[in-house]
């Protein structure tokens, strides 16, 4: 099987994100990058599928800057066989990213049997790339996936919906499956795995190689700002029981008319 996994590199969850000087993106200089946590589930699922299907290869794909290749190295240290990096600025929109991923799959020369990704990236939270990619490739896709069973080219996919219920789909592979927390427990990259990852092939492509240009851009990002600081909370004090009804009335009034939450 040819298994592809799309991963994104995102700022570490503990990063204090700051807009850059012209507000066109976030300041990326001092950021520690990690693999998008939802993509770790996708890599793990790919490795599980590989283990169950002899002669399988796992190719991990990423679109982004080359400065730090943490996400791809982690995926290969976990056990992915090879990686393709499409070099690009980190501020592509979902459409460009999906188109670049499609191009990278085509350039690999392999026909995909399964494409996995995380359900969303924790930085931009757009939740679009897997579905766009599936559309571009003409493949079925299921997202927010928490259960995966394979029987030949039939996949039984469990998808989480509002209220904690599950939808069960039967999908014929190839398909694009976007994973959610709960589908598996991602393995650690072992130390020998980290050492072996150095010797695994990493192909680098440009946006031109995958026929993506600025003309493909659907969303232009500008004016990145931090959210306004939360105003200080208000404190209400009732010094004795006699004052309590009046204070309660005041709080209820403010919640209704000012905060508009009740």
């Amino acid at each position: 099987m040819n298994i592809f996994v799309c991963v994104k590199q995102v700022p570490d969850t503990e990063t204090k994100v700051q807009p850059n000087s012209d507000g066109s993106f976030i300041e990326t200089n001092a950021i520690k990058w990690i693999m998008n946590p939802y993509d770790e589930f996708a890599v793990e699922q790919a490795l599980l599928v590989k283990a169950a299907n002899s002669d399988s290869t796992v190719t991990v794909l990423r679109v982004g800057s080359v400065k730090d290749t943490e996400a791809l190295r982690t995926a290969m240290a976990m056990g992915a066989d090879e990686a393709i990096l499409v070099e690009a600025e980190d501020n592509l929109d979902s459409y460009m990213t999906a188109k670049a991923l499609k191009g990278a799959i085509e350039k690999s020369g392999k026909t995909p049997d399964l494409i996995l990704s995380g359900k969303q990236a924790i930085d931009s939270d757009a939740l679009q790339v897997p579905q766009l990619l599936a559309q571009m490739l003409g493949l079925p896709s299921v997202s927010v996936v928490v259960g995966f069973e394979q029987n030949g080219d039939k996949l039984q996919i469990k998808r989480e919906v509002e209220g904690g219920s599950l939808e069960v789909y039967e999908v014929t592979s190839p398909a694009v499956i976007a994973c959610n927390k709960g589908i598996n427990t991602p393995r650690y990259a072992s130390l020998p795995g980290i050492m072996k990852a150095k010797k695994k092939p990493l192909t680098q492509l440009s946006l031109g190689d995958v026929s993506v240009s600025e003309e493909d851009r659907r969303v232009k990002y500008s004016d990145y700002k931090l959210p306004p600081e939360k105003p200080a909370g208000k404190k209400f004090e009732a010094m004795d029981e006699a004052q309590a009804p009046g204070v309660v009335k005041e709080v209820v009034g403010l919640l209704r008319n000012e905060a508009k939450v009740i």
Partner: protein
Amino acid sequence: MFELSEEQKEFKEMAMKFSRNEIIPVAQKLDEEGKFPQDIFKKAWELGLVNTSIPAEYGGAGFSNLDAVTICEALAYGCMGINTSIMANDLALLPIVIAGSHEQKEKFLKPFTEQFKIASFCLTEPNNGSDAAGIKTTFKDGGDHWIVNGEKMWITNAGYADLYVVYGTIDPNLKHKGISCLVVEKGAEGLEIGKKEDKMGHRASDTRSLRFNNVKVPKENMLQNPGEGWSIAMKTLDHSRPLVASSGVGGAQRALDCVVQYANERVQFGKTIGQHQALQMMIADMVMKIECSRLLVQKAAWLADNNQRNTDIASCAKAFATDSCMEITTNAVQIYGGYGYSKEYPVEKLMRDAKLLQIYEGTSQIQRLVIAREALRN
């Protein structure tokens, strides 16, 4: 050098992730119950975090000493006691790595890379700690085997070990020239394993006494020749002291991280305690000593990696890093105040655990003797 390689940074990151996710959440409970961390130990082995000294040709990963101390610091950050169990495997296997023949390495080291196995380093005796050359355990020539008699004390992993690397003497009158080193396998007849010690710290590690009653060990299990054990032990310690020192760095770093978090939260006299200069002096001392300790550890490991004599620097690293760890963890309790003395908070355990680092594998005082002897010789 002044920067770890990209690969070493990844090792450190991975080991820290393991510490944070697997060790820290359970360390306090294992400490309280004095429970051996078998599951964590095995999981660490599966991920290549154990037996870092086994060379690649015998199935190991082929780590450098600098790799090993980097990994060790991260594991000790999680729990110095659990790290002791893990580190003890290396301490026990190092004599085989250093002095074993090709056949001995094939026979004894390789299985440790194929299966999860545990080993014990057996040097100390009830009446011989720092005076290691005075050990009383005897190896008597029995023809095609050695007959071992004696008692060993404070042996880490003793209750779970598959392999014991045992020091004894072929003749106590020969002093250090009689000392020899034998590999004894689990289940040897006449090998009695004592009860688990109830310790102040490192409570998750398994520490016991051992008694050898006419234990027959095949002749081919002796490392090098009879009487060459002393130099094997000394070379082993040159390699293992940087590891103990790096445990001190890990423990101290953990204490500092706890202190920084607390100092930014706790408010007294209308400001966070971190804004009070008295506390800043203490924190600055912690940072300085951790930085110095880590550099000493890295130098000691680097010297070993470059086949240069590191006896003095390894002892400097061991004494400085573990004494600093004791001071830093003690001050962490001081900064936490009443909370620090409570088992509800993490720092009292760090203080209890730090103490042992100043004692095992050569006390801080013995390290100073080594350092002074090396200095005076030049």
